[in-house]
């Protein structure tokens, strides 16, 4: 189906996908940092709703800035059924995110994180069962992907054990169930992702509708849990000093998720999701060096953390090296043909998407409404920034600067690679 897609083009797309997976890890891992600055006294659903508001604002403004919203219209005309999947995926994300906040409250971030990151194992199962991923792959590739994912899970668990602080007790099982539930929801969320990208949809269009599903589900959940709109509004007003930080968390998360979407598109979910789960390593760096977690711990504890990190990194490298061969790529194309036939999508549109190119029908360029969206989003952040209170938390500023510089370098480097290879298609 991809016709004359030469080995060099295949290699470039794979490289762009792998780089996107690693960049996603850095940004998704940092998304927890701003939420640490917010008051822990806030109700979990209010924290989750505020993050979703940040995600909503970012998910409309970033695509408008990068590509313009005109391209979204083209995608909807070509594959209108995908809007249903985008809304469904947004609902899954919102419920999973709320569950993680309950999990953190009951068992702590360090135990909860590897539990919900087991989502990559489920992502691999869905990739194989529903989308022909790893079909026809050599034994070495199966070994690299499955072994790499297992190593990452083991490394993540070791990190959790090493960095465990006293849990609140009493509700440990509830916390574990919430974390595992979040993992199942997030692992299943990759079904709509992969479906959209096999059809040829641009990730920047998919996230636009995804955010609507997220906001609607989260508002409904928050209203049900907080006892109506009036109570919810009062909670948000009371939380105004923390809203800026929570919205920042949502914004950082969106940048990471956009890279994750490109990884899912170009290397599939069985490889892309484990790569973006390196977010746990980045989360650990923030925790250790910026927020001073584990300070005063013995050498043994640090050795466990370094050992767990190395195992996790080895798993990620194994997965990144397992490039899909020609037989597997043919199986991907068969899965794309299923979508094309079932939903009567223009073959040229599907083909262009798989090749990382814009469809001939694509509308390009930005319109005044795009600048209006970007301006409004900026105004929301500036307004909430003026209301924000600087939290009384001691930060490691040298590490903070270094991590932010590394994230920006990954943003610019991977962004350039994606632009050069796919023009953000």
């Amino acid at each position: 189906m991809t016709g004359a897609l030469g080995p060099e083009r295949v290699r470039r797309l794979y490289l762009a996908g792998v780089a996107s997976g690693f960049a996603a890890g850095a940004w998704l891992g940092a998304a927890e940092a701003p939420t640490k600055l917010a008051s822990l006294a806030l109700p979990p659903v209010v924290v989750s709703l505020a993050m979703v508001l940040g995600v909503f604002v970012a998910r409309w403004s970033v695509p408008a800035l990068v590509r313009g919203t005109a391209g979204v219209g083209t995608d909807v005309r070509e594959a209108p059924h995908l809007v249903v999947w985008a809304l469904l995926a947004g609902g899954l994300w919102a419920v999973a995110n709320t569950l993680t906040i309950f999990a953190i409250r009951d068992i702590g971030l360090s135990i909860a994180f590897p539990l919900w990151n087991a989502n990559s194992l489920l992502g691999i199962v869905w990739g194989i069962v529903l989308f022909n991923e790893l079909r026809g792959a050599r034994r070495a590739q199966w070994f690299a992907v499955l072994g790499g994912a297992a190593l990452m899970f083991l490394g993540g668990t070791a990190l959790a054990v090493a960095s465990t602080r006293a849990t609140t007790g009493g509700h440990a099982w509830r916390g574990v169930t919430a974390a595992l539930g979040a993992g199942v929801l997030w692992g299943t969320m990759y079904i709509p992702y992969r479906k959209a990208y096999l059809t040829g949809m641009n990730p920047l269009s998919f996230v636009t509708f995804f955010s609507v599903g997220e906001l609607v589900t989260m508002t409904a959940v928050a209203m049900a849990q907080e006892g109506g709109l009036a109570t919810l509004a009062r909670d948000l007003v009371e939380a105004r000093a923390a809203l800026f930080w929570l919205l920042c968390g949502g914004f950082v998360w969106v940048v990471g998720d956009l890279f994750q979407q490109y990884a899912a598109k170009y290397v599939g979910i069985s490889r892309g999701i484990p790569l973006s789960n390196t977010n746990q390593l980045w989360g650990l760096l923030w925790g250790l060096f910026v927020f001073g977690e584990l300070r005063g711990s013995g050498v043994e504890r640090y050795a466990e953390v370094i050992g767990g990190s190395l195992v996790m990194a080895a798993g990620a490298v194994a997965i990144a090296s397992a490039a899909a061969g020609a037989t597997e790529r043919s199986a991907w194309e068969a899965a794309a043909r299923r979508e094309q036939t079932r939903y009567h999508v223009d073959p040229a549109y599907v083909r262009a998407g798989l090749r990382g190119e814009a469809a001939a029908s694509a509308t390009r360029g930005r319109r005044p409404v795009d600048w209006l969206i970007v301006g409004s989003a900026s105004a929301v952040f500036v307004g909430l920034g003026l209301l924000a209170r600087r939290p009384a938390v001691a930060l490691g500023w040298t590490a903070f600067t270094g991590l932010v510089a590394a994230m920006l370098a990954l943003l610019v480097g991977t962004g350039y690679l994606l632009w050069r290879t796919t023009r953000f298609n």
Partner: protein
Amino acid sequence: MGLKRTEWRAVLTDVQFWVPLGVLLAGLLLLRWIR
């Protein structure tokens, strides 16, 4: 959203629609139990 009846039929007869929907409903029940 403007889906035609045939498009809706294609969505509703696709197993890849019911798997995430089922998981979403289960997640909402879990959230209700946890709070």
